[in-house]
C-alpha cells in the first residue's frame, strides 16, 4: 500500500519555494554553496542550485557530501556503501545549505555537520529537506522545508526523482515486513 505525498507539480513548487526562502535568508554576498547529502540529497541540491541561479543570475556552486565515515550509528547499521564527497572549493567563510531528501532521526544531519567541520569553518550552515517525517532523536530542525508528513513508524518515505525514476513524486509506503 502506498499513497502520494507530493506529485511532480507540487514537488516542483516546493523546491521553487525553498529556493526563494534560501535567497531571502542569504544574501548574494554570502557565497552560498548548496551541498547534497549522499545519496538522497544530491539531485535535490543540484536542482536548488539551478533555481538559485535563476534568482541570483549567477552560477551557484553545489557539491556532494558522504557522511558514512562520520555516523554515530555505524555499529548498528552494518556495512555502508560509501559514495563520493566533492565540495566545490574552500568552504571556510561561506554559507552552506545542506540538502537531504528526508529528515527523520536527525543523525544524518549531525554526521554531515561533523563531516563539513573537517573541510573548513563555514560562516553558517542551514538545512533544507524535502520531507520532514518527525521522529527526531537530536535537537535538529530544518531551516527550509518542502512538506511535513506524519507516517507510521513502519512506513517509509520514498522520494523518486526523474534522475532515477520515471517521474518526480514522493510516496508514503508500507514497509515490507
Amino acid at each position: 500500500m502506498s499513497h502520494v505525498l507530493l506529485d511532480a507539480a507540487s514537488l516542483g513548487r516546493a523546491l521553487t519555494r525553498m529556493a526563494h526562502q534560501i535567497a531571502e535568508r542569504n544574501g548574494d554576498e554570502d557565497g552560498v554553496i548548496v551541498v547534497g547529502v549522499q545519496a538522497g540529497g544530491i539531485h535535490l541540491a543540484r536542482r536548488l542550485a539551478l533555481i538559485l541561479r535563476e534568482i541570483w543570475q549567477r552560477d551557484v556552486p553545489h557539491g556532494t557530501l558522504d557522511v558514512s565515515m562520520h555516523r554515530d550509528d555505524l555499529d548498528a547499521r552494518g556495512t555502508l556503501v560509501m559514495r563520493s564527497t566533492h565540495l566545490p572549493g574552500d568552504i571556510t567563510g561561506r554559507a552552506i545549505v545542506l540538502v537531504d531528501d528526508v529528515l527523520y532521526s536527525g543523525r544524518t544531519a549531525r554526521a554531515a555537520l561533523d563531516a563539513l567541520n573537517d573541510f573548513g569553518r563555514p560562516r553558517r550552515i542551514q538545512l533544507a529537506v524535502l520531507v520532514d517525517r518527525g521522529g527526531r532523536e537530536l535537537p535538529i530542525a530544518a531551516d527550509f522545508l518542502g512538506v511535513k508528513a506524519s507516517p507510521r513508524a513502519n512506513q517509509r518515505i520514498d522520494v523518486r526523482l526523474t534522475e532515477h525514476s520515471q517521474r518526480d513524486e514522493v510516496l508514503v509506503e508500507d514497509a515490507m515486513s
Partner: protein
Amino acid sequence: MPWNRRHLLDLQSLTAEEISAVLDTAAHFKTVGERSIKKVPALRGKTVVNLFVEPSTRTRISFELAALRLSADVIQFSADASSLKKGESLKDTVRNLEALNADFIILRHSASGAPHFLARFAQAHIINAGDGAHEHPTQGLLDVFTIRQEKGRVAGLNVTILGDILYSRVARSNIWALRKLGARVTLCGPPTLVPRVFEKLGCRVTWDLESAIRDADVINLLRIQHERQRKTMFPSISEYAGLFGLNHSRRHLVKPDALIMHPGPINRGVEIDNSFADGSQSVILDQVANGLAVRMAVLFLINGGRQEEIAA
C-alpha cells in the same frame, strides 16, 4: 553492499564483488588522505592491536596509520619483547588481548593459517597481515587497487609476477585477486621457485624471462627472500640477477606503458635496478600510498561485517 564479513583472512575465499567493494571503498578513503584533516571518526572508541609475531616494518606502520586515521586506539605488540618469547601460546596471548577489549587483531605470523585459527575462537575482528607463505591479503588488494587506478581496469590485462613465487604470500594473494578480477597471470622465475603446480591456479608458468615480460601490462617483482630460502634454490644472487633481474639491458623487452610494481623492500641490483625502480613506469611508491587507503577500507568494512566465517 556485497560485504558482510567479520574478518579478512585471505583472498581465496572472497568473491570478485567483495574485492571490488574493498577497492571502491578504498578509493573514497584515499581522498581523506588528501584533505587537510586526514582523520575521520569511523572507528572512534575501538581498539586495534597490531600483533606482529614475525617482524615487519612497512605493513605494521601502514596498519597503524590506517587505524589512527579512523580514530581508533592502537596497541603495538611485537614478538621480540613479548610473552610469546616466554612460552605463552598464541591462543592465550589473544585471549589476554581480548580481556582488554581489543576489537581488532591484526596478525602477522610465520605459520600459514594462524589467522584462520584465531578466527575460530576470537570475538575480535581478525585481519591477516601475512601468514607464512600462504597469503598477505591487504598486499594483494593494494596491488589490484594500484593496477585499477593506473590502468582503469584489471580484467583482460597481462600481469606478470616475477621472482620467488614458491615462498611468497604476496604472490598467492595477488594470484587470487587478479584471477578473480579477470586478469591473465604469468609467473616467472627459476624453476625451483616457480613450480608448474601453480598452473592449477589458472596461471601461465614460464622460466623464460623474455616471454614473460614481452606482452606484460604489469610486471610485479617479488623480493628474493634470503631468510626463507635454503641455498639450494639457485646458485647465487648474481646469477639470479643476471637471469631474472629487471635491468636496463631488458628495457627493449618491456612495453613502454607497462607498470613496474614491487611490494618492497626492494633489493636494488638483484630483482630490479635503479633505472626501473626509479623510472617513470614505477608505481612502487603509489603502492605504499594506496596500501594505507586499502587498509582503512578493510578496517571500516569488517567493522560493519556481521557474518561469521565458517571455520575450516
